[in-house]
């Protein structure tokens, strides 16, 4: 960085609350500038006499800083800490300076002072309201190549960051009795009252320091001290209380149902070297019993010609810069106002040695005391006058003043104009809470009307102007909130003495004199979206009547500042053009977020390792050690195949399938869903849930079961084991585990509440190792105790309890491969050790571990379905060839009536059959469509689709399953699968490709 430039031309010695003992440096468009600790980027730029900070969105007009707060529409900068940390569109009035901060202006090329895009200002008649609806219509072909790229390029102000966000974002849920939004006089008074009465209080404010309007209003004395000092003391008092949480730099951005309020705390954006463990921002999700809204009000600008020239800003913002930051906005400052507050700003500037050539007041008879004081200070006051236009381009240089009722213009040279059109109560949060606003005609403003939630507004956001009235109202709200939440606590009253506050009178909404209808001037209503008074009138002229339509046509209030300055002006101009009263035209609804928030804060912890839980089976690490390749199945990592010696997937799967059929293979089936169904009515319950009969299933026996939905379509399948008279071990598909349990529980609670039966998920209690193949019994026998493994004692589809490797097991003789096989359930913490022991034995016998891919092939060779692959939610048990699994004598089960629907028993339904490729080598593509005649014209009639398809090393040919119309009656028929480059000829067959008789199961 360059050597510091020590001179800050607009920094006024002895003014403001920052200390010259804390100097800092930052850069703006590459130039190093000095600042003081506590400065915002805006206050530091103004201190360096820089007002030109950006170019407007549409016309590329030079723009300056308008405000000193979150309402800022113009001063949006790119803020960069390092290469990876660049954030566009940051309001310079909110961003605090830290040592080394880099700020860049936006929407200009090649430079801020000479911007090519400025041509838009000259051709502005082409770019009036709604121009994009009209201009880019014709010719159609130009849309893709010209219009869309142009609009995309023009859209948005800043540049999106390109690097991965390296910062942490944290989240916090919090509950409280009373949440107070805003730390000004009203918020602090309410917080003190609520906290003293024992309530759990959270008070937040978006600024680094509490005080709200006390930052600029130095006329106020509270409890014998100046207002700002009182606010700091009140905050310290609150922070020291156990029942209070004080949050600075924290914006309430969203007010949701049942007093659920989102806050964003900016934790480290003001620090030059924050700790790596510190989050950049923290999202607070607060649930409050009562919310006190004390969000204050926002000063409006004046709508006059060229009111957007850099150096023109809000009067009270200028006062903030002077009284808080010690910075004057110029040396020769004009004042244009419809409200008393600008006088106070003018007086403070004048007393600080700034020249005030004139106060231009559109009112004929403003407050006489103020006029007298101005005169006493030597300030010229032009009542009944307006500023017809501002002069200058990159910086305002003059104001052209004339009587409101017409008359000669006088050009007054200035280098800054401060303005006030009156104050707009900040009803954003109230409106977000779904409260309805009411119109206060006397003061031309909307205030809270009908409440929808348990909240209350206090202070100037409630339309209360008088300082003592604000404090009284806030204390009452705080006390009442505490009593409401904790009715048994004895009440404590507090009192706060305040003097000096002024209830400022005067308001102007809509265009100021000189910018009325018919005047061809650029008088901006919405600075950020470049909406002028003329644009609003044009919208009305084009037929838009609702303010919601006017808003969308003109984009008034649709920028990131959400119309904080522009809404009331836009509404007034539209109402005037429509010839209606303001409330008839209505106010647009405020929506979250109140100010822009980062995606990072919303995403919070849910990224990287915490994006989603990654579920691993107990044997995972052992599978990694033997080279498994994994696939994602839902959130599970499952071993897909186990390549050896450079095998590709195809080779590995062929070997695994072959080895399992001829020797032995082992498979990790732990992810299967498992539900323990227990109780005297357990059998009766399962009999109703499954299509199969369950009442007579013997203890120690297994049964394959299908469950349907009420509509008769297959929902899930699995094997059910009867452990005891009143206890079943149910398995579900991996993906079906949670929904099957939910469905069972749903039926239990709603349809069968009389049953004494309970469901417990045991999916993760048991690790499951499937050992399959002709040698499977030999492999496990040496490790098993207490179970007779012979075919007579433990035939196919039976189970027994005993031990394996010394740990308890539910050993099931079952098969999803068609081979003799066992599924060994052991408590999960033993899974890995048992797997390792068995794997050693399997390997010694030249067997292998197989993954999910081989599991799929092996079961397809036998025609076993996978729910969700060979079914799609429209397949009945009959369609799937599983008629045998539907209890013919059963009088009731879930889906029994659905299965009788005419369309489910009609002929010609899609049925699950096998397919052989005639050429003996083409493996069909899963999902491929099937037709009867490949020569028919396109679009062809598709009669079905391939649901499963593999190369079968065991059958030495491709195998496939397909759902085909009337498939059961098409055995032996030739059909066709048209692909991109060829048509594959297939023959319909039974969906069994290996061991059709099923003898191998029973070895």
């Amino acid at each position, binding site marked *: 960085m360059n050597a510091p430039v020590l001179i800050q031309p607009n920094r006024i010695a002895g003014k403001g609350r920052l200390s010259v003992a804390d100097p800092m440096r930052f850069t703006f468009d590459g130039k190093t500038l000095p600042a003081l600790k506590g400065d915002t980027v805006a206050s530091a730029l103004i201190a360096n006499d820089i007002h030109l900070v950006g170019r407007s969105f549409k016309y590329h007009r030079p723009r300056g800083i308008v405000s000193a707060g979150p309402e800022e529409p113009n001063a949006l900068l790119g803020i960069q800490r390092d290469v990876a940390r660049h954030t566009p569109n940051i309001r310079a009035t909110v961003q605090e300076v830290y040592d080394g901060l880099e700020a860049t202006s936006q929407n200009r090329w090649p430079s801020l002072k000479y911007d090519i895009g400025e041509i838009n200002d000259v051709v502005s008649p082409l770019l009036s309201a709604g121009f994009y609806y009209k201009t880019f219509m014709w010719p159609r072909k130009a849309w893709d190549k010209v219009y869309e790229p142009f609009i995309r390029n023009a859209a948005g102000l800043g540049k999106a960051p390109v690097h991965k966000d390296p910062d*942490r974002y*944290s*989240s*916090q*849920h*919090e*509950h409280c009795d009373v949440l107070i939004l805003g730390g000004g006089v009203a918020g602090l008074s309410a917080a003190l009252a609520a906290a003293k009465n024992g309530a*759990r209080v959270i008070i937040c404010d978006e600024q680094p320091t509490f005080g709200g309007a006390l930052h600029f209003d130095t006329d106020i004395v509270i409890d014998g001290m100046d207002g700002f000092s009182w606010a700091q003391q009140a905050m310290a008092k609150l922070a020291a209380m156990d029942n209070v949480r004080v949050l600075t730099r924290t914006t309430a951005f969203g007010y949701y149902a049942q007093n659920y309020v989102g806050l964003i705390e900016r*934790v480290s954006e003001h620090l030059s070297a924050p*700790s790596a*463990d*510190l*989050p950049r921002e*923290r999202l607070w*999700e607060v*649930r409050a019993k009562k919310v006190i809204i004390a969000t204050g009000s926002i000063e409006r600008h004046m709508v006059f010609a060229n009111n957007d020239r850099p150096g023109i800003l809000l009067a009270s913002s200028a006062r903030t810069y002077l009284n808080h930051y010690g910075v004057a906005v110029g040396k020769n400052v004009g004042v244009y106002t419809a409200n008393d507050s600008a006088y106070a700003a003018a007086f403070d500037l004048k007393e600080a040695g700034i020249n005030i050539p004139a106060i231009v007041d559109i009112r004929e008879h403003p407050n006489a005391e103020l006029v007298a004081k101005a005169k006493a200070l030597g300030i010229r006051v032009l009542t009944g006058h307006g500023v017809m236009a501002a002069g200058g381009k990159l910086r305002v240089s003059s104001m052209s003043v004339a009587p409101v009722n017409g008359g000669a213009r006088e050009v007054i040279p200035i280098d800054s104009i401060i303005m006030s059109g009156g104050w707009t109560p900040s009803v954003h949060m109230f409106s977000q809470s779904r409260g309805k606003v009411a119109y206060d005609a006397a003061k031309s403003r909307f205030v809270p009307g009908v409440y929808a939630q348990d909240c209350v507004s206090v202070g100037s956001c409630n339309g209360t102007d008088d300082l003592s009235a604000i404090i009284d109202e806030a204390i009452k709200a705080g006390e009442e909130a505490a009593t409401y939440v904790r009715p048994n606590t004895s009440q404590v009253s507090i009192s706060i003495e305040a003097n000096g506050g002024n209830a400022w009178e005067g308001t102007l909404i809509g265009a100021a004199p000189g910018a009325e209808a018919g005047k061809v001037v650029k008088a901006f209503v919405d600075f950020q979206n470049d909406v002028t008074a003329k644009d609003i009138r044009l919208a009305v002229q084009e037929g838009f009547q609702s303010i919601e339509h006017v808003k969308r046509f003109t984009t008034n209030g649709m920028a990131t500042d959400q119309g904080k300055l522009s809404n009331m002006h836009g509404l007034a101009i539209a109402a005037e053009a429509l010839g209606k009263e303001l409330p008839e035209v209505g106010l647009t609804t405020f929506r979250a977020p109140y100010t822009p928030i980062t995606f990072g804060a919303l995403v919070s*912890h*849910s990224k990287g*390792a*915490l994006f*989603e*839980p*990654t*579920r*691993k*089976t*107990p044997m995972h690490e052992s599978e990694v050690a033997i080279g498994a390749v994994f696939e994602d199945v839902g959130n*599970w990592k499952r071993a897909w195949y186990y390549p050896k010696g450079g095998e590709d997937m195809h080779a590995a799967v062929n070997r695994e399938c072959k080895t399992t059929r001829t020797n032995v293979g082992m498979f990790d089936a732990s992810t299967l869903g498992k539900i*323990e169904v*227990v*109780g*005297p009515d357990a059998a009766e319950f399962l009999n109703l849930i499954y299509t199969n009969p369950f009442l007579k299933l013997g203890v120690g026996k297994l049964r394959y079961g299908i469950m349907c939905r009420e509509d008769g379509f297959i929902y899930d399948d699995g094997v059910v084991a009867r452990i005891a008279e009143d206890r079943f071990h149910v398995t579900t598909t991996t993906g079906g585990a949670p929904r099957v349990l939910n469905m069972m529980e749903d039926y239990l609670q709603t349809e069968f509440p009389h049953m*004494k*039966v*309970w469901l*417990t*998920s*045991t*999916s*993760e*209690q*048991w690790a499951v190792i499937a050992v399959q193949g002709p040698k499977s019994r030999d492999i496990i026998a*040496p*490790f098993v*105790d207490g179970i007779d493994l012979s075919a007579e004692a433990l035939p196919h589809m039976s189970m027994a309890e005993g*031990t394996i*490797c*010394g*740990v308890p097991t539910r050993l099931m003789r079952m098969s999803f491969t068609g081979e003799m096989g066992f599924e060994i359930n052991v*408590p*999960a*913490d*033993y899974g*890995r*050790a*048992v797997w390792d022991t068995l794997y050693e034995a399997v390997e010694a016998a030249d067997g292998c571990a197989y993954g999910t891919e081989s599991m799929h092939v092996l079961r397809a060779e036998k025609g076993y379905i996978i729910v969700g692959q060979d079914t799609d939610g429209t397949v009945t048990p009959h369609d799937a060839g599983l008629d045998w699994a539907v209890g013919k004598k059963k009088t009731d089960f879930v889906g029994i009536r659905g299965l009788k629907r005419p369309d489910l028993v009609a002929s010609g339904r899609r049925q699950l059959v096998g397919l052989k490729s005639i050429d003996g080598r083409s493996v069909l593509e899963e999902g491929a469509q099937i037709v009867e005649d490949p020569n028919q014209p396109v679009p062809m009639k598709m009669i079905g689709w391939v649901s499963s398809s593999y190369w079968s090393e065991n059958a030495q040919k491709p195998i496939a399953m397909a759902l085909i119309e009337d498939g059961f009656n098409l055995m032996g028929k030739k059909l066709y699968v048209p692909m991109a480059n060829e048509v594959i000829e297939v023959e319909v067959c039974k969906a069994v490709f290996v061991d059709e008789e099923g003898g191998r199961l029973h070895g």
Partner: protein
Amino acid sequence: MDNSVKLRRSLPLAEKAFGASGVSVTSMGAGYRCSLRVGADDVAALSQALGVDLPQTPKTSARSASRIAMWLGPDEWSIYDSKNNPIDDLKNVDVACAGVDVSHRNTAIEVSGSLAAGVINAGCPQDLSLEVFPVGACSRTILGKVEIVLCRTKADIFHVECWRSFSPYVFEFLSTAAKEQSALAAR
């Protein structure tokens, strides 16, 4: 082959631990757990069998020696015991109930220290103030994207139960939050 050797339980989090100023996140040893379901009429019989009075007030737990009985629903309790398997005490009970051994389904993490409640609140939306969630309070709730069972065993100690495959997520979530909150508290 010697089949009498009992294999040691290998826990999903082994002995993972994370510590920061004001908070520790520690995986707990191999405990025993039973999911217990029973109707209101038979609660007394089971309380006697288990040696702990099954609580009937929502979100409360009861303790007896090494055993905690946590209320999870009107007919549902989770019984945790660091030493003895509660399922053994249900073997001779003659009432309609469902006791299911889920010792290996879940694993436990202890979060302790002055920042413990805040760390859990990073991902759990419940009110964990001592007033609302006092010592002994328990709840089946969420942490981030997963389900947990939470029990406050002391003012600044929480017992967090989750399914074993979710435990790496839960541990990572809690230790990440612990690191951040520790840094936030040090500001």
